């Protein structure tokens, strides 16, 4: 078994505790994410998927339980400390891409590197490499808002990769894409997973994603009700991916 890079123990999230509108969104989840995993978290709306992903991403503090990233407990970290964890260990991909539409692809990716303290020059150099890496070498100076959905999501993936994260957390990455571009984005993610060793945790409704995953976790009412672990991580043949 490879190294555990993210672990949650008995995580719970209660919104408005003690109020009439109290919501128990996550009810005691344990999970270990190993280096090289491609985990799909599926479940119906309201099952607590997104809340759980926000907790994994250190965007939301759990009401109970522990989140341990790369061996470090995060519960006592200040807001700045959590920001640092996100900056150094985590990458995010969103359903809506969340790029700055008037900034070019290059500027969008650079921004993540600038936030991490890189100079403009070195940020742009690395951003260029990353965009070439995700197949957008010819779109560097296009305003992000003018790119297609699939291209925008690839820019977002390049941005998520910018600071060499341990884990990339994706919230419905194909949710806004047609099936063809959705598939391209998934294949890029799988390629990054298999060939470059990046770890993914993806929250999704898309059954297609489960085919690309080595672990599928089913969530219902804030609890894990089932987990499928596939023995063969290379379930998708690489020769199919690279064409």
């Amino acid at each position, binding site marked *: 078994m490879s190294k555990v890079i993210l672990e949650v123990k008995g995580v719970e999230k209660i919104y408005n505790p003690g109020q009439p509108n109290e919501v128990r969104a996550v009810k005691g989840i344990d999970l270990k994410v190993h280096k090289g995993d491609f985990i799909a978290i599926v479940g119906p709306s309201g099952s607590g998927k997104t809340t759980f992903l*926000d907790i994994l991403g250190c965007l939301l503090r759990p009401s109970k339980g522990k989140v341990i990233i790369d061996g470090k407990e995060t519960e006592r970290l200040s*807001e*700045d400390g959590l920001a640092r964890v*996100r900056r150094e260990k985590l*990458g995010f991909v969103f359903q809506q891409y*969340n790029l700055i539409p*008037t900034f070019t692809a290059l500027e969008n990716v650079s921004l993540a590197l*600038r*936030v991490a303290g890189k100079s403009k020059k070195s940020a742009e150099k690395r951003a260029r490499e990353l965009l070439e890496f995700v197949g957008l070498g010819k779109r560097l100076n296009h305003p992000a808002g003018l790119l297609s959905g699939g291209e925008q999501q690839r820019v977002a993936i390049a941005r998520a990769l910018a600071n060499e994260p341990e884990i990339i957390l994706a919230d419905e990455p194909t949710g806004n894409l047609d099936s063809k571009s959705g598939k391209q984005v998934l294949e890029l993610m799988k390629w990054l997973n298999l060939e470059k060793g990046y770890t993914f945790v993806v929250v999704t409704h898309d059954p297609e994603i489960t085919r690309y995953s080595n672990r599928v976790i089913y969530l219902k009412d804030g609890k894990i009700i089932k987990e499928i672990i596939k023995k063969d991580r290379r379930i998708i043949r690489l020769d199919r991916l690279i064409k």
Partner: protein
Amino acid sequence: MLDVALKNITRVKTRSFLTILGILIGIAAIVALGAIAGGIEATVQKSMETAAGKIIVFQKGSSVITGFSGSEITDENVEEIREIPGVKEVIPMLFSIRRRGSNLIEATTVIGISPEKIDYFKGKEVGMEEGRELEEGDTDSVIIGKDVADEENLEVGDEIEIAGEYFTVVGIIEKTGDNDIDRGIIAPIEELKDAMKAESYPVVFVIPEDVGGAEALAEDIKDLFENFEAMTEKEIARQVSRLLTNIRFFTFGIGGIAAVVGGLGVMNTMIMTVMERRKEIGVLKAIGATNRMILRQFLLEASLLALIGGILGLFFGSVAVGILILFSAFAVAPVITPALAIGSLIFAFLLGLVGGFYPAWKAAKLDPVVALRYE
């Protein structure tokens, strides 16, 4: 991340332009009004230098500010003042406004003074650009300030009309920076008195034997003549500085209000910007930006907007002042001092910081989860 801030400003061009315009108007007002106040101050200060050591006597109710109009001191009074112990010299002076066209701003002041006492008015060190000084026994002669010569295209030997009589220009005084001299015409007092058919003088200068005794002498004069005011240069300086304080208060008050309104514009713009870019702030937080980074970035944008407004305001304010100097022979030359220029830029920058603080703080405090899911 200055380049990012600049880029963000250009994302909403019209709004940024209007915000900059708000600051621009305020700072331009401060610069222009401040320059005029500075000009008045410089002129007054220059006049004060030449007034050193003397006492100015005029009738109560008139003042230096109104040019001593209505003040009457007779030859008899002059003789009486001369009798007072401690008086070295008594120098009667006459003033007449010589209009050129209908514009009062373009008027020049004609000063009547005894030729041999002229140094008490213009200062010994001030020399002649052309021609000669007025001399005892000169009749129908005047010397003129450099600005008068330039504006009316006058040379030594030319004739000018004052109060219906003609006088010959015998000399042009070198440029001094003191408007009373540069924009003045100096004539022998007796001739001017005849031309103006004046029976009295608005002002007499009293030179004390001992400069240190000026204050006491001024008191003696006031005791002797109930309806006369006698002021040493110190007192005048006090009066003038009170007036200047008022002028400065007024000009910076107006400019300041305009600029504060501009600062509110910055705040308004930044509040809208933060609302619109909520999602982006969420992303920035997700990719690891700390609250402080977000605060700094939005403060940078706000202060950049204000600083651009400040720089443009300084430019257009200076242009306005330039136009003022060029197209009107304004009685005071407006001065844009380095302190005024730098001060107005710092003020603009501070307006941006103060106006931008609340929105930037709101941005920094946004919950990333809420911000990210905002539609």
